[in-house]
């Protein structure tokens, strides 16, 4: 591999990695939000002492 190909390869890896970090990061954020909404709903459905 010459230098140009190595650099091209690094940029492709960077682009694919950034894409997955953004997408999986958002999925994780949704998971946290889902859990917090679920907890809120459970707290509401529990009878008050």
């Amino acid at each position, binding site marked *: 591999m010459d230098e140009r190909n190595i650099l091209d390869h690094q940029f492709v890896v960077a682009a694919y990695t950034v894409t997955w970090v953004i997408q999986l990061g958002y999925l994780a954020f949704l998971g946290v939000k889902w859990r917090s909404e679920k907890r809120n709903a459970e707290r*509401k459905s529990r009878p008050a002492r």
Partner: protein
Amino acid sequence: MKKVLLTLFPLVTVLLMVQGYHQAIYVAPDDAMQGYVFRIIYYHVPSASVAFLFFFISLIGSVGFLAFRRSSPNRAQIADAWALAGAEVGVVFCTVVLTTGPLWGRRAWGIWWTWDARLTTTLVLWLIYVSYLLLRRFAAGPQMQTLAAVLGIFGALDVPIVYMSNRWWRTQHPAPVFGGDQDSGMKDPTMVHALLWNMLAWFCWGLLVLFLRYQVERRHQEYAAIEAQEALEASA
């Protein structure tokens, strides 16, 4: 049936993702002019397409909210949840577009960014929808959803401008992959296949995330309605 679909769809999406990656990295050939770095396009173009589609869903949701907000509050809340989900997931995909684009541009053009029509209108689109999300996050009161719906409709007006920008104006951005003139687009069928596989994969991924976001928002709305009802009862 619903449970089977809910299990099967994520599985199919993951398989499509693997197939899309395989096609993009191992099957599609290097581009004659740009070489290996052209493979960034297999993630960049589908992300842009899905972002546009979800901003359109946000537009439909916003119009639906404004149409139903007085006559049918429940329908209006459903439309509002779709509007928010479309905008938020659209912003995620648009962020991917605005990060993979400069990475490709640095190798293909030698620069990270240029203020040409396609890039600038895409950045404006992203900023409009980020402001939409900030409005929803920080504004309070009964008018918030209405204001957000109006902003969502204005934001969606930028989508056709972004799409047409490299047809209407001379831009540094490459010619359109789809719907361009005879000289534009991909010539090699294996490249077209790789792009279509990734389009399908990212579309399914987007649908999955959109559905999740919608469900989270509906839960939030239900919780907020119970809280409002309790507050009313306590003050009565």
